[in-house]
């Protein structure tokens, strides 16, 4: 036990003192915020671009329908010949030319768009809708239907979702749950890959440095492996804690800027919030506040530890089986695969149906459960499902660590031998 503590201490310090670790811990939140800002800025830049689209309308019906918008300006070229109009659009580098043939009423497919490059989907949809609306109106009038009456008769429904404990929720809140669950699941995957890789690199380092035999003459290989896994996980928890604290500071600051005092807001005090802020923002804030943030953070840690132990034991065994990082490729794919599967399963099936059988099954299978379950947690998961999922994860951990330790024990003392799967299987029996 004393040695395990020493190893954990050394491994932890080796990770935390690493320059990359320090930089990543404090820089990546900045990079993240910066990236969002950049995306927002770029999409603003993109939409401020002015486009001119020429209109060649043989029916003379549509010129008034195409109204200039902030980004698109329509230019009626129907006065010219079609060839002239085309030439002009090309020479002036307009965005494109809409051609509406005379017999449009009977042949809706005759509308054409000419342009240097194929136009964006949004632009095309807008043009199609404008023409279709006009034609529909024409049809309605011809059939003697009053357009105003029709518009008045249209109704709109917004379902208000409410759970049994009476909390109000909305479609928006489902997106927020998905966002937080998805972010947590994705972060967990990144953590597992990053910290698993750290463990693997550190095993390879000890092998290539040839210090390994000096150490295993003092401690059992399993002690070294577990010390490494534990020490590195503490570094991960340190990083996560720093990020949660930074996010907390950021959240409180932004709430303060929005004019909401986070410390006085209670779940039932929606009205207070509504009085202060705009209703939509208030609802958004309430949705975020109503999220099980605490249990999300706690289960993030539980699943991080469980999932990380599972995978980093495998990473450690891989590190022991190879002589250099370049040899790890053949073993990496089977490790990454279940993680990827978890992410995709999460994004596709949890959005669709957070409590459906696929989501439930994948949140039980230990290789994917840390990711999928985290995505489900914001939607509310019964405690017994959590218990089964965590229980299975723990049991699998024991099995995998036991197998990994066997490979590790043999692998660390093998030099210059490129291990195959067959070889690894043999090591299990040594």
């Amino acid at each position, binding site marked *: 036990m004393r040695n395990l503590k020493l190893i954990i201490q050394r491994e932890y310090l080796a990770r935390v003192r690493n320059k990359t670790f320090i930089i990543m811990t404090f820089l990546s939140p900045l990079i993240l915020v910066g990236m969002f800002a950049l995306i927002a800025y770029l999409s603003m830049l993109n939409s401020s671009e002015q486009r001119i689209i020429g209109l060649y309308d043989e029916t003379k019906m549509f010129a008034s329908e195409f109204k200039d918008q902030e980004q698109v300006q329509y230019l009626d070229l129907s006065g010219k010949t079609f060839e002239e109009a085309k030439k002009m659009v090309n020479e002036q580098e307009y965005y494109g030319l809409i051609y509406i043939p005379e017999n449009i009423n009977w042949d809706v497919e005759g509308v054409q768009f000419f342009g240097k490059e194929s136009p964006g989907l949004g632009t095309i949809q807008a043009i199609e809708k404008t023409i279709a609306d006009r034609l529909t109106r024409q049809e309605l009038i011809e059939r003697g239907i009053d357009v105003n009456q029709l518009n008045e008769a249209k109704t709109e429904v917004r379902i208000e979702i409410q759970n049994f404990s009476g909390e109000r929720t909305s479609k928006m809140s489902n997106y927020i749950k998905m966002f937080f669950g998805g972010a947590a699941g994705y972060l967990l995957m990144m953590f597992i890959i990053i910290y698993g890789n750290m463990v693997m690199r550190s095993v390879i380092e000890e092998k290539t*440095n040839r210090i390994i035999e*000096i150490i*295993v*003459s003092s401690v059992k290989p399993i002690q070294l492996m577990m010390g490494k896994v534990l020490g590195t996980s503490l570094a991960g928890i340190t990083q996560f804690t720093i990020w949660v604290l930074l996010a907390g500071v950021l959240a409180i600051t932004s709430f303060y800027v929005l004019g909401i005092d986070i410390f006085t807001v209670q779940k039932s005090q929606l009205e207070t919030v509504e009085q202060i802020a705009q209703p939509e923002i208030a609802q958004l804030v309430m949705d975020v506040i109503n999220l099980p943030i605490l249990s999300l953070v706690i289960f993030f840690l539980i699943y991080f530890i469980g999932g990380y132990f599972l995978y980093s034991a495998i990473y450690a065994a891989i590190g022991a089986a190879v002589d250099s990082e370049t040899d790890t490729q053949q073993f990496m794919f089977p490790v990454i695969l279940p993680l990827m599967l978890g992410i995709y399963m999460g994004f596709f099936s949890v959005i669709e149906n957070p409590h459906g059988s696929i989501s439930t099954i994948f949140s039980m299978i230990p290789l994917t459960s840390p990711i999928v379950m985290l995505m489900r947690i914001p939607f509310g998961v019964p405690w017994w499902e959590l218990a089964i999922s965590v229980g299975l994860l723990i049991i699998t951990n024991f099995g995998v660590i036991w197998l990994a330790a066997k490979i590790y024990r043999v692998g660390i003392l093998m030099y210059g031998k490129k291990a195959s799967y067959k070889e690894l299987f043999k090591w299990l029996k*040594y």
Partner: protein
Amino acid sequence: MENLLVAENIYKQFGNFTALNNVSIAIPRGSIFGLLGPNGAGKTTLLRIINQITMPDKGQVYLDGKPLHPKDIAHIGYLPEERGLYKSMRVGEQALYLARLKGLSKAEAKERLEYWFERLQIEGWWDKKIQELSKGMAQKIQFIITVLHRPKLLIFDEPFSGFDPVNAGLIKNEILQLKEEGATILFSTHRMESVEELCDYMALIHQSNKLLDGKVSEIKRAYKSNTYEVGLESENNTVLLNELKEKFVIGNTNFKSINDDLKLTIQLNNGETPNQLLDYLIGKARINHFVEVIPSVNDIFIKTVTQNA
């Protein structure tokens, strides 16, 4: 003679490959024991078994008469052949860590490290990183770490590989000094001259089998062939040579001499003594040189290995 370490009937297999086949060795307390063998003979596997890094398939190792126990690690110091240190850790920090893994307290480890750093004249290295040191310098640190916890049994696997002659000499003297202080030393090598110089006992392992072991002087005695190297001066060397050839097995040899000698090795017949040879030669020539030919460990090694190939 009391043995500090006894390994009895050790078997070890890796898959279909037999690394050790019924190997037994006994290391007397306070001796220097040389484990010899060509590369791949199984020396390192045996050392790993003694260090409890690998478990034998069959057989038992005893330390001080008791079966080896995990906590005996504290009584053994091991300098493996494949040795290195953490590149990015500082020398002092690293030495402290490794010493504490051997069971020393922090204060104790620090005190002893300071003693050894001074003794090997490397006081200024404490805060250096290993990557700033040369290979020989790093090996000094490894040596210190091996002996720091004052183990009863010291195991060196190819201790002199990678050392320059000055440092090799320094380490050799330290090993002898440790022996004086009561340590028992096991070292494995394929460099015969170091066995010749240092070892009291030896064992020879070849292709997973132990071919021979015992006291170095006794092995040499067993391997000597009753042969003498002589330098003779006579009036007619050719006549003398022919005369000798009839009575003994004669071989060629060379040694430094200021005289115009007939240089020969003479192997005596069974039961004959060197005195009888001298008696015989005295009447025939002037004897300038007369030495018993003692086989070197290298000769014994080559002879045994080729015999068993």
